[in-house]
């Protein structure tokens, strides 16, 4: 689809905006509706749009697959790591209050870190899912999928 100039230009304009909105949803999530999961999905939708327009190879060049896997795993580690850090600082697992000098600051820091972890994982996982399905080599046998007789 990269020969279509309208698609290309519009996508180039849209993708930064989508990413910006994802970041807004991510970092404003502790005051307003939003948070890591929604932000991650929006972020990945920008990159999926990029893949749809410019092809999987270009997308893979932008963020290679091993990096995606790393980000997905790091997100989970960030989430659990925050919980364990609270544990080491004397609170219960995921008790953010002990993370900073005052409980309010601690809660802020904790929720941002945890949501960041969620955002990383969701965005990377969505892209990985898309890549795994779209990158599957098409074979003639796949024609079987199109045969739906009911």
């Amino acid at each position: 689809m990269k020969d279509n100039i309208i698609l290309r230009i519009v996508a180039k304009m849209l993708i930064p905006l989508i990413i910006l909105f994802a970041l807004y949803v991510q970092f404003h999530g502790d005051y307003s509706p939003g948070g890591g999961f929604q932000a991650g999905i929006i972020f990945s939708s920008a990159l999926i749009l990029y893949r749809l327009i410019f092809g999987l190879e270009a997308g893979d060049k932008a963020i290679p697959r091993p990096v995606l896997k790393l980000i997905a795993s790091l997100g989970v580690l960030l989430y659990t790591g925050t919980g364990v850090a609270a544990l080491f600082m004397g609170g219960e697992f995921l008790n953010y209050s002990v993370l900073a000098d005052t409980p309010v600051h601690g809660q802020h820091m904790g929720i941002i870190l945890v949501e960041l972890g969620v955002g990383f994982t969701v965005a990377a996982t969505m892209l990985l899912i898309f890549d795994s399905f779209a990158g599957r080599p098409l074979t003639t046998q796949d024609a079987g999928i199109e045969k739906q007789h009911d």
Partner: protein
Amino acid sequence: MVGQHSVILMVVLPLLAAPVTALLPGGRSSWAIVMTVMALCLIMSLGILGDVISGSLIHYELGGWAPPWGIAYEIDGLNALMAVIISIVGTLVAIYAWYSVPADIPENKQPLFYAAYLLCFLGLLGMSMTGDIFNVFVFLEISSLATYALVGMGRNRQALTASFQYLILGTIGATFFLIGIGLAYAATGSLNMADLAIRLSESTHVQTIHTAFGFIFIGMALKAAVFPLHQWLPRAYTYAPITVSAFLAGTSTKVAAYVIARMVFTVFTPEYSRQTLFNELLMVLGAIAVIHGAVRSIGQTSIKPLLAWSSLSQIGYFMIGIGLLSATGLMATMIHIFNHALIKTTLFMAAGILLYQTGSLRIASLSGMGRHMPLTFAAIIIAGLSLIGVPGTVGFISKWYLVLAAVEQQAWWIVAVLVLGSAMAIIYVWKLIETLYFQPTTEPHDTGHIERTPALIIPTWTLAIACIYLGLDTGISVGAAEAAVNSLGLLSRP
């Protein structure tokens, strides 16, 4: 510090390890991580069980939020025993995996296999330890999703369809469970199990509660493979890699049975079950499962489906024990869950050794192999006798307690079912033993060097010895189950 936090660490450690495992390049390094995590979890679970038996209930609030607003982990004897069972099976299967995973899973998939294994393990642990009913659903889905992936890694292509079928049915079950939680929340406004128990007994929304209970039970019964909802289990166990079959047979349906027990005894009180005649339903379903599972087991021509159908028969015993609604009945169920985890894991592990030696699990093609593989065969005999319930093995104790519980309530038909089920177990176990030992070797196989692989024989024999030892020294399992039942503290004799 660890002592206080070990409850949550048991769930968090596998969660920390799983992404790391998935990133590692090779199978051996992932295995090392899995082994370490499993061993640590086993130590922690034994510590928790020790604490609980000595009389202290553990209460842990996640994030410092007090229930009913926050998620709390409430550990009494029941949870602690389940955690120990899962950890023991998980650790031994991890040792077994040193040989079996490289044999079954391609090298590049091994890290992912171990990651899924850890996730399944943590989901089951979480289900059995949490005190929040929605948390049960979350952990149920974590363990289920990991299980579908694990089952789908089997080497036959039927593994894919078996796993897909399991996925559809499992998700319907989980969704039903979710509806039940929603209705219970609508009736009470709480998700904490202890809080729910109080509010449900005070609530006036009788219809909502009935519906909630129905959905919760059907959802969990699907995961536990209670009689009419068991169709996914034989195929899933048959086509899964042997490592996965051994782990699932020892843990997954047991945890679901535990959740049913928890619902019946803690959340909805035993009186509620008695009023709604739910206990009768459980006993009838359990009795049908015992007979039906045994009959189908006798008809199998291959070891794995034979063991899977026999598992279904054993799930029937769990349901009968819960349905008796007495302290003895629950105790019998807990002991039987523990014993059956030992027995079935042993049998699947031994079956795995046969498979790796001969390349087949069809009973006919294994004739005479028992004479060439004495170690494996002896383990099968011990576990088989335990399955029947011969005195001196663990299986006898749990069936003895089940009979006691049934006699206590003069439920003679239950006693008859128990005896009949055991008699049928003799037939299918004998079928295995006869072919393996008494028939002449028909097909030439290489004989007996694989069964000396330490990674295979050590976990198998640890479990087999446990089957005998715990059968003779009844103090350990009965003591633990007694503590489990006592810690519930609400059991009045009928």
